[in-house]
């Protein structure tokens, strides 16, 4: 498969062999629209998108206590490993803060769930989740992270964690870090679509 990335298109790094017989206007148009997209992004950036300053970020839809808990929880869901960074590296809490502002109904399950987490920790250990030890935190997470095994009385925690895990995944896997980790290589102009590559056909056996 011959494919050309936006960056290569824009930088003019791609020499297309004539043997591929790609219609010239395809390349020209692909180049033009890639430029157009690039320009609009550059304009947006120039119009005052703030420089990233993670330490200075002030959440709009979480209290300081909630924010500490969220920042801790997302990394229990998706931690750093050998292949890629953590949920906080991918700015998942900031993403959640944005989503809570856009979909305000979601604040109900989020805030009730965070409250449940702390209440459960206080019931068990007489302190909030943030103050618990690693072992204590894991005991609470183990109780709610596997819906089929969970006890009926933990259902509010299970429902919350299903939602929280989904939202963490949405934020992480759509970030630059997440997309690179997955190895997603689409959403770019491909001059000749050749279907399933030979190595994948061999792997599949079809």
């Amino acid at each position: 498969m011959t494919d050309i990335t936006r960056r290569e298109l824009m930088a003019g790094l791609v020499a297309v062999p004539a043997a591929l017989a790609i219609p010239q206007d395809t390349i020209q148009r692909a180049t033009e629209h890639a430029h157009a997209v690039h320009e609009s992004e550059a304009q947006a950036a120039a119009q005052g998108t703030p420089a990233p300053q993670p330490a200075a970020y002030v959440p709009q839809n979480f209290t300081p206590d909630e924010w500490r808990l969220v920042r801790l929880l997302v990394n229990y869901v998706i931690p750093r490993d050998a292949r890629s960074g953590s949920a906080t590296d991918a700015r998942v809490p900031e993403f959640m803060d944005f989503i809570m502002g856009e979909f305000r109904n979601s604040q109900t399950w989020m805030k009730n769930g965070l409250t449940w987490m702390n209440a459960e920790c206080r019931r068990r250990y007489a302190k909030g989740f943030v103050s618990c030890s690693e072992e204590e935190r894991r005991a609470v997470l183990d109780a709610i992270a596997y819906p089929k095994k969970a006890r009926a009385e933990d259902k509010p925690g299970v429902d919350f964690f299903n939602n929280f895990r989904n939202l963490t995944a949405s934020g992480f896997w759509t970030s630059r870090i997440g997309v690179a980790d997955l190895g997603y290589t689409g959403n770019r102009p491909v001059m000749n679509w050749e279907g399933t590559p030979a190595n994948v056909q061999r792997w599949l056996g079809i």
Partner: protein
Amino acid sequence: MAAYELTKAGARVVLLEAGGHWDNTSAQYSAMLKMPYDSPRRGSSTPERPFGEWDACIGGWQIPGEPYTKAEGTKFDWWRARMLGGRTNHWGRISLRFGPDDFRRKSLDGLGDDWPITYNDLKPWYDEVDKLIGIFGSIEGLPNEPDGLFHDAPAPRYYERLVKQTCDRMNITCIPARLSIITKPLNGRAPCHYCGQCNRGCMTNSNFSSTNVLITPALRTGRLRLITNAMAREVTTGEDGRATGVSYIDKNTGEDRHVRAKIVVLAASSCESSRILLNSKSSRHPQGLANSSGVVGKYLTDTTGTDVAGFIPRLVNVPRHNADGVGGNHIMMPWWLDNRTLDFPRGYHIEVWGGLGMPSYGFMGGIQAYPEGGGYGPDLKQQYRKYWGATVGFSGRGEMVANDKTFCELDPTVTDRWGIPVLKFHFEWRDSEYNQVKHMQETFRNLIAEMGGEVWSPMPTREQGYGIANGGAIIHELGTARMGASERDSALNNNCQAWDCDNVFLADGGPFVSQADKNPTWTILALSMRTSAYIIEQRKAGRL
């Protein structure tokens, strides 16, 4: 299509659009090639874009200030687009011709009605639409799935190869899809570059939406006047009962306006056009325009639909590659059985989904359904990696038979924000639909089992309607101003011309006599082109 054909033939045309401007070739409008991290929303929906922030289509199931009502017990969702190009900005581009049998169902099984035209009447127009707009597919020679003038179809993706093999084993016909996406240059448009994001609006015009494939060339003739944000109220008529133009509200100012016309073509979508007709009451047309027979609003149908998805262990850890392809399935299963041996009268086709698509908001939601049953931490992170691309889903799209409990009418008390009476919907599925959808569910479950997979959800019960989607949800409403052989039981003659007002025509899904298990767009386009040719011919002969 009518604006394109008529301006090309030399007519001066005014196009009223209820929404705003749109140009999918401009980066100002189209989000083609944007990555999820280019937006803090990560592709999630907005109030004006329920299918996601980058979806081309502005509209929705509910539009502020433009309500519709439902009879008690009716479940019905009405999608409306509010933008230049309308619903052609919102579709899967599955472009199927109706087959010879689809025009004469009553003759074959006694249900519904025959069309006043045959496949052979429409075939030349389907051919012209293929040539003008472009479509990929393959020559198959199937009896009720007529072949077109196809560009080459793209090769199947990895999971589609597995589905194809599975269908072959189960004797289910499985062929390359037929989508209005071009795979070689056509009429100055570049071929598809396989970014997989057709729904965002194609900046190279490599797929079909009327905005840039029809309206832009029509504008280039210099004979098309485009008025956006114009909400049509009614077709006005003179003392002789003939149409004199259209009154509309300028949504920018709220003012009432009128445009005079010698000929009026309604193409506002089936139910919206019928609403305009019903609101066009006068002493000569006391029941509304084109409604002497009382059929406007009746014979409403939508496509039946249900979905089943499953986890396919064989696809776990699929080697990474670009599996995007075009913005739709590369294969499809046309109706392959004989209804005479089944407990439902009409067929359905199957669409397939899965793959390694662009991560977006909602990515792999419900990970707890996979074998590990949830979790957190490094193991969970690994689950997302290995299960990405290991889900395959099937959607059935079937033919509904029109019934007398399913129709729309003017609500006697409710109006929209401009005081225009709104539609009230009545909708009822019958056993002909429930049994068909049950068959879809069973077939999809068998397909997933044959692939060695596990279905995510239990088989829905009869009480759950076997998982049938609400009326309107598939966005194929048709038939509310049907054509026919007699003015006693139809609104339009076989040229989509109103029986009781010869200078009013319809060019959307309203004229359809039956659904077929095929997406209606290609037939709407062919009918519209045929109607346009009739208008041109009649004008030239001085009869209109």
